[in-house]
């Protein structure tokens, strides 16, 4: 017995292992290394590549010439591109607003439904998203086009005399975007609404608040974190969206997402596309930061 203990104390681990055993700092490093590695490979490295690319020059045949060049960024300051950027901001903001307007009553209804029905209702929200995105967008095209379902219905009902032009308009793009991003708003909103204790609303009523006052003073403020989380989840991808404007916006509507995609795939100007991507990234970051600062951090995002 005593021999064994002596043997133990004689044993000395190899250097690295010993440091790991004794030094809490090394232990911390070892623990975060998987995450660190993941971030390096999947975020930092690609980002650095894009930054470098954005500072290079397009060659005459669409290749990349390794010559430092800041013109990609100065070109972005052209009013044409600024207008696209501004318009993208507008569309992404409007998408967030409309997903709130449509998603809030939906999330409220689900959160107030009997407990055993809630998961079914949430499930129903998600079911359409098992179908491919492109197919669902084509379904909307079928509904909105000139000889589409909606026009046929309205014509047959005699509400309109000539078909409405709905497809290939900014409105069509907004409809598509709102449709696509609605669940990203409903789910965090539902989470924050569902967490509000029934007793809180009863307490408000008990203290003299009418139903609308209960909503304005208690329910709504308590659901703001969910709304912020939802807005971020909708706004960020909406800023980069290009499929919906491509398919439903026709040639008229171009968003920054389309611009970037066109630079890479059509114009073969990778440096300029990268510069536009960087601008999009910074802009999204700034807007999101301003928004969360203003309205408090959306803790729901972390749940």
């Amino acid at each position, binding site marked *: 017995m005593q021999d064994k203990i002596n043997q133990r104390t004689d044993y000395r681990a190899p250097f690295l292992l010993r440091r790991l055993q004794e030094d809490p700092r090394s232990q911390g490093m070892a623990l975060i290394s998987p995450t660190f590695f993941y971030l390096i490979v999947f975020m930092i490295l690609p980002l650095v590549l894009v930054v470098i690319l954005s500072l290079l020059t397009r060659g005459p045949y669409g290749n990349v010439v390794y010559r430092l060049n800041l013109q990609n960024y100065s070109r972005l300051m052209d009013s044409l591109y600024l207008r696209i950027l501004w318009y993208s901001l507008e569309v992404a903001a409007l998408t967030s607003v409309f997903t709130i307007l449509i998603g809030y009553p939906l999330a409220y209804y689900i959160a107030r439904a009997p407990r055993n029905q809630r998961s079914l209702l949430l499930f129903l929200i998600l079911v359409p998203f098992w179908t491919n995105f492109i197919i669902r967008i084509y379904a909307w095209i079928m509904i909105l086009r000139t000889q589409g379902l909606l026009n046929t219905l309205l014509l047959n009902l005699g509400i309109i005399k000539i078909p409405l032009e709905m497809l290939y308009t900014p409105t069509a793009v907004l409809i598509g975007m709102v449709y696509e991003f609605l669940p990203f708003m409903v789910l965090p909103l539902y989470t924050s609404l569902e967490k509000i*204790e029934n*007793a*809180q609303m*009863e*307490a*408000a*009523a*008990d*203290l*003299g*608040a*009418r139903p609308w*006052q209960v909503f304005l*003073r*208690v329910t709504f*403020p*308590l659901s703001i974190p969910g709304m912020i989380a939802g807005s971020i989840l909708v706004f960020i991808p909406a800023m980069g969206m290009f499929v919906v404007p491509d398919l439903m916006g026709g040639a008229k509507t171009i968003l920054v997402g389309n611009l970037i995609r066109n630079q890479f795939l059509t114009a073969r100007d990778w440096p300029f596309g990268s510069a536009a991507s960087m601008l999009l990234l910074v802009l999204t970051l700034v807007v999101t930061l301003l928004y969360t600062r203003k309205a408090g951090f959306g803790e729901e995002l972390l749940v």
Partner: protein
Amino acid sequence: MPQYAVELLDVVKRFPNPGGGEITAVDHVTLRILHGEFFSLLGPSGCGKTTTLRMIAGFEWPTSGEVRIKGQVMGRIPPYLRPANTVFQSYALFQHMSVAQNVAFGLEMEHVPKAEIDHRVGEALDMVQLSGLGKRMPRQLSGGQQQRVALARALVKRPAVLLLDEPLGALDLKLRKEMQLELKALQEQVGITFIYVTHDQGEALTMSDRIAVMSKGKALQIGAPVEVYERPNCRFVADFIGETNFLSGRVISLEGDQAVVYVEQLKKEVVGLRQGELRNGQDAVVSIRPEKIRLAENAPLNLNCFPAKIVTSAYIGSDTRLIVELGNGLRMNVWEQNKISTLEPSVYYLDGQERWVVLFPENTLILPME
């Protein structure tokens, strides 16, 4: 001024059962609560006490019967128009508002002028000893402090009736005892009628002017603490409040306020005070509290005395708690107060000692079986 602060007249509340059919939560309850009274609804969980409270607050409407506050029929008047405020079991403080905003909420709903709100909020916080904590958020407070905020928030409205739904349930024992006395003092100070729901009989006895003991939706007995403890009208009340010994038997004679019961297990008669509805030949229980049983070396009466052997005795300081066996496996709890200070061992009981158990008829109750 109407005679009663709150009246419940033959109130019934049924809920649809998810499995089909209906559950009767409150079953023909009639209560008349006086102005300024501290009234407790006491019973085990599921007895209907919280539903009763919620019908007074207006969160539930009676299936039949009538609720009146200050003589006014409540009918389907919503909670926000009733002169009653509630302290919730979970406190239900508004998490996004500071303590002062929580307390001010009810006054803002009444459109009280800003200066008066500030004044009254300060007063209310002083009253619950939370002065200076107005700017804190609820989650920065301890459970006891949150409880006080809930109290201040309801009291600041100066309601005719304050409804309290197990407000001390989430606090630890020591704090609960402190708050019981404080609540009672506060109630006497503000003079508001308190209706207090609890399952803790000690709490109800300590604070209440009157108690309604509820079981299975019915108010079995309504009376002052001393009445429900000393003169319970049925087996459930005797059992639920305090400790008691039961002997089952059959009524063999009734005379004046006394009844004689033949207890099969003892093969003897027991005489006691009759309570509730009793008929000759009916099954009944003899109920006697452990502290009211006398142990004696010789039988002092010619009735209600039974030879017994001490099974165990536990000295717990103020009392000695004994279990005695009267034969046939029939055991009783006996508590004796240690009124004499001595180290003399012969004064204390020993296991296996033989004594007479004496049930004085005036301390013994005969109750209907159920």
